[in-house]
């Protein structure tokens, strides 16, 4: 271990996936609203960036309730991708985000290829949006409800189609509900993506033994929180080790600076704090501050030294 450094001299800034970030700590889609909800609770300017709630071409009202339940060291959700739609986002949410002082990545999705393309194109023209993150964990209605993001050929075609209309950096948020994360990551590279976000929630369920009913209305939901961190680390590492030529934003159960460092070691260039923002609305701020202190104490002058530095 090198000699300790002055925390102020530690470089957290990183340019990755087509975006220059002040720090490698972002907040994950669906856990940070449209940013404004956290005003006064965390300093957005200390963040590397925020990823908005997923946007669809038209507003969506979401699923029936109950929509969430707590599980061991985690939670299940089935919100149903409720959002304000592209127009509502531009009119009601973007003006605040333009002046919030951090990078803005807009997560988006569609129910069909055409919807994905329309949504991507609609968001691409907006000033104040630094990059787009495509959620491919949606069921493909035309293909019998199979997620777009689980078939490498479909995924490559979808990425290519969106790439053709999106000039801004385009990241793809991969689903972990697959047996071959590397094949999906390669499909994104083949389709012309600029970055990967790994992972989205893991499909799970919870049952109330007393009432004999599922704990959430849609029966299945997405598992998040510290319970999924080992799976997320494994998938980030697999994609990194395979040499897929795209930077990775690591997501899954990150609660503190140590968790973030583990993701960097596995190969992530940025991390996204998700469910922990529900536990502590200033979680991302804590992680940025602690990360700087940890790196300084360990004599690491640049966070990039950690990326992929796992010893095996």
């Amino acid at each position, binding site marked *: 271990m090198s000699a300790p450094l002055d925390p102020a001299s530690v470089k957290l800034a990183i340019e990755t996936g087509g975006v220059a970030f002040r720090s490698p700590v972002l907040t994950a889609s669906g*856990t*940070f*609203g449209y940013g404004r*909800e*956290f005003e*006064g*609770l965390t300093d957005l300017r200390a963040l590397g960036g925020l990823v908005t709630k997923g946007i669809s071409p038209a507003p*969506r*009202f*979401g*699923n*029936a*309730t*109950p*929509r*969430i*339940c*707590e599980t*061991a*060291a*985690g*939670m299940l*959700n*089935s*919100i*149903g*991708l*409720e959002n304000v739609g592209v127009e509502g986002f531009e009119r009601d949410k973007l003006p605040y985000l333009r002046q919030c002082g951090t990078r803005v990545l807009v997560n988006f*999705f569609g*129910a069909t290829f055409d919807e994905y393309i329309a949504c991507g194109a609609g968001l691409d023209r907006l000033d104040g949006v630094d990059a787009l993150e495509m959620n491919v*964990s*949606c*069921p493909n*209605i035309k293909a019998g*409800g199979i997620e777009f993001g689980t078939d490498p050929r479909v995924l490559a075609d979808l990425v290519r189609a969106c790439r053709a209309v999106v000039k801004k950096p385009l990241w793809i948020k991969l689903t972990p509900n697959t047996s071959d994360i590397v094949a999906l990551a390669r499909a994104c590279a083949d389709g012309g993506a600029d970055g990967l976000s790994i992972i*989205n*929630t893991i*499909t799970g369920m919870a049952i109330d033994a007393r009432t004999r009913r599922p704990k959430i*209305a*849609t029966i*299945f*939901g*997405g598992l998040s*929180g*510290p319970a999924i961190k080992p799976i997320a680390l494994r998938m980030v590492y697999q994609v990194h080790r395979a040499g897929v030529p795209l930077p990775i934003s690591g997501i899954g159960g990150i*609660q503190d600076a140590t968790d973030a460092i583990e993701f960097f070691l596995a190969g992530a260039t940025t991390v996204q704090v998700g*469910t922990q*923002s*529900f*536990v*502590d*609305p*200033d979680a991302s701020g804590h992680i940025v501050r602690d990360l700087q202190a940890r790196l300084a104490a360990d004599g690491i002058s640049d966070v990039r030294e950690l990326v992929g530095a796992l010893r095996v």
Partner: protein
Amino acid sequence: MRYFQAKVAENRVLGGGYFVLRLAGCASLSAAKPGQFVMIRGAWGRDPLLPRAFSLLSVAPAAGTADVLAKTVGRGTALLERSLPGAEVDVLGPLGTSFPTPDASCIDLLVAGGVGLPPLYMQGELAAAQKLAGRSELVYGGRGAPDLVLLREMENMGLALHLTTEDGSVGMKGLVTRALEARLDTHRGKRVRVMGCGPNAMLWAVARLAREREVPCFISLEEQMACGIGVCLGCAIPARSRPYRYVCSNGPVFDAADVLDVNPTSSAGPPPPSECPA
């Protein structure tokens, strides 16, 4: 609304699984109004993960303390029940909407079911502080005697108490709506407002009764929530004014006329689930 650390100053066990936590270091909750709530989490490590929502029972601005009433129902409340003076807790609040302020021209019927007491207790305190306790009555129901707590404190406020228990051990035997009906009969022709908090089934029954009597009704609803600030969107409830409203950010206190007709058990029903999980 602020996110801060507080300390347990006192943990008063009331029996029946009920306890009152007095939290020190809560000066930023001083201006909280009856109906508003806080998210509370102890130093629980990674599990249980999420903070718990509690309606405030009382705040003491001079002492900088805040009280919450809880009943042990799961892991989080069990941990809080065992918390000792000095234990640190994270607090986010005050959050959400509140009940209408006491009004000398109205009779307020405060309807509480079991652990739904806190916002109505606090409303009673506010009425007493404004010398309007005589215009408020508490209609309070539970399964049995252990479910009716803090009775002496509320008598001392000067509130008239109308108690019901399902087992008949205290007060009128039956559901709280029976006692509410009797109070509505008594006050027929006067300006009456109903304010309720308790199990959702009770609240819908209270709201129906108020609607039949053409009396304004405000209810404090409960739903699973992760964040308390309108981000997780877990606490959605079907509403008339919009497909969904949020208990944390549009509530927890709602005008019952907005949320009554489209509750999940009514004929109108909630919007159908969409196809996209997570």
